[in-house]
């Protein structure tokens, strides 16, 4: 809901800007996240978006109707339900992508997508753009890239400015911390592995940066590149705030682990769930998540850390 309102807001602004209409026919040259040169003969009209993040980027620019193919994991926006699927659990199909006659494929190197699609598309002659989201800046940059590729530069610029503005507002809110308190130590659990290990947000990812911008700091400062953390390590870190990307039932399940009830965050009821769609899909909704989390942290701080 929020996405559409904001997007439309951005669009409204963009429509007033001169030169907003895309110039059809002029070739567009871009550089994607892997440093690859992407050359489009004209603004992309038939786009295949692999993974929810890329779909949402295109949708946020109001270009939903230009999407001609998605994959099984994309659920948002609801309009994607009727679109042709070009891949999913068992991989991605070059045939299916080509069948949609796209003039742009947007992909993120997760699962086998990049391996299976970048090379074939290049050889067949379909422009393909690889996007990464290692930081919030990169997420914002992706908005610009997609807008350029679709020939809606002005719309993209407007959306970018709106997102940056929201981020600045959150920064102000965070800086005006109640009583100059330090940022609470937070641990965001993003998943659980079969052997009991936990996946947590770690430095160098947009998820972590989102958490930091919302006013927290990482409970395990020395955490390295490895994504997995043992439950004991989480217990030892004893964060002030525990964030769980998922459903409440999952959080309750975690809380039942031996020793976890004594965790500071759980005793003081400062353990909440955050939306996976906001923190694990890099896109405009991430900024919704940052705002929500920042608000909650500020409120909790105002109530005091009893």
């Amino acid at each position, binding site marked *: 809901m929020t996405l559409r309102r904001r997007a439309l807001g951005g669009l409204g602004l963009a429509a007033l800007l001169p030169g907003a209409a895309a110039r059809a026919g002029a070739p567009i040259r871009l550089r994607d996240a892997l440093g690859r040169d992407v050359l489009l003969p004209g603004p992309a009209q038939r786009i295949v978006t692999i993974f929810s993040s890329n779909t949402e980027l295109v949708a946020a620019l109001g270009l939903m109707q230009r999407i001609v193919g998605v994959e099984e994991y994309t659920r948002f926006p609801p309009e994607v339900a009727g679109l042709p699927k070009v891949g999913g659990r068992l*991989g*991605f*199909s070059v*045939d*299916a992508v080509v069948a949609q006659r796209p003039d742009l494929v947007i992909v993120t190197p*997760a699962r*086998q997508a990049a391996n299976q699609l970048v090379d074939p598309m290049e050889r067949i002659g*379909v422009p393909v753009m690889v996007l990464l989201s290692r930081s919030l800046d990169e997420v914002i940059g992706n908005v610009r890239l997609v807008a350029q590729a679709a020939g809606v530069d002005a719309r993209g610029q407007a959306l970018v400015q709106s997102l940056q503005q929201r981020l600045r507002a959150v920064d102000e809110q965070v800086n005006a911390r109640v009583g100059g308190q330090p940022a609470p130590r937070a641990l965001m659990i993003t998943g659980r592995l079969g052997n009991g290990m936990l*996946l947590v947000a770690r430095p160098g990812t947009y998820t972590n940066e989102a958490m930091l911008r919302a006013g927290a700091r990482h409970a395990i400062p020395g955490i390295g590149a490895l994504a997995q953390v043992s439950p004991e390590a989480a217990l030892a870190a004893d964060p002030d705030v525990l964030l769980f990307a998922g459903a409440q039932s999952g959080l309750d399940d975690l809380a039942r682990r031996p020793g976890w009830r004594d965790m500071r965050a759980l005793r003081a009821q400062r353990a909440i769930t955050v939306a996976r769609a906001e923190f*694990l899909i890099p896109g405009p909704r991430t900024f919704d998540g940052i705002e929500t989390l920042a608000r909650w942290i500020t409120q909790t701080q105002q109530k005091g850390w009893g």
Partner: protein
Amino acid sequence: MNPSGKMWCLALGALALAVVLGICAGHQWAAPAEIWQAITERDTLRSRLLWEWRMPRVLAAACVGALLGLSGAVFQGVFRNPLAEPYLLGASGGAALGATIALLVPLGLPQSWLLPLMAFAGAWGATILVLGVARVAGALDASGMLLAGVAMAAMLGAIRSFLMLALSDETVSLQVVMSWVLGGIQTPTWSGLGWLALITLACLAATQTLARGLDLLGLGDATAQSFGLDVARFVPRAVLLGSLVVAAAVAYGGLVAFVGLAAPHIARWWVGPRHRWVLPASALAGALVVTVADAIARSVLPPAEVPLGLITAVAGGPFFIVLLARRLRAYGGRA
């Protein structure tokens, strides 16, 4: 019963038909006329799909199948066992480990050539290790190598499992490794295909030199020796060459199951037990099987592609059972 020239022509014709079928197959089936169009002019997206993507893929499948069949025949000849297959001496474990490293460890090198290179190095390296272990243990004969191979496979599997657990996170799932391990043709460029074809022909020629030795080995070590075969020198040489062939197959096609086991049997059923014919016949049978299986893999479950190894394994299971049931029959060797 030496196969006549006519039989070979028929078989090659069948392979050509399979290749055409393969190029037509996919989520959107192509008509043979479109193939001709794709060869002569490439102005539509569809023609480019056929020319740049499907054709090299199908021809690569044929080559990989030929290599698998060839190495299967060599291994069955060396180990004198109709259940021997080319992954016995650690090639699969090593290749899977190499592929896992290429896929999961961020080395910053382009994966299009890193993956086949690591798979090849893994397969080849593991076999050399196995032979080395067998030699150090003073057991450079068939059973010694098999034992060393079993031990090596266990070790490599453990290392690979550890890597998979340690390096997986939300974005890089284990699926990436699984789908390679289950087998699938990496579509080469036309120049890459040229190399693969050259390698296949070279392997065909090189393995022919093993034909007499493999025949003699089938008479038993003592008789082979008394008929003039230096068994102690021949066996490692044959194993090394067979492993080179399977490493090449695995580099381009992942771990495709059962073809190395089944193709030599099909070959022996068709041309008899002399290796001079079994080796090329096995290559032909392997090429046929993999080409058809790849066509099925690409068309049966849109929009996904079923991993090639699953198709061959599913088809291979019943074949295996039939083989066991016919164990004591002629042409298949003795139990």
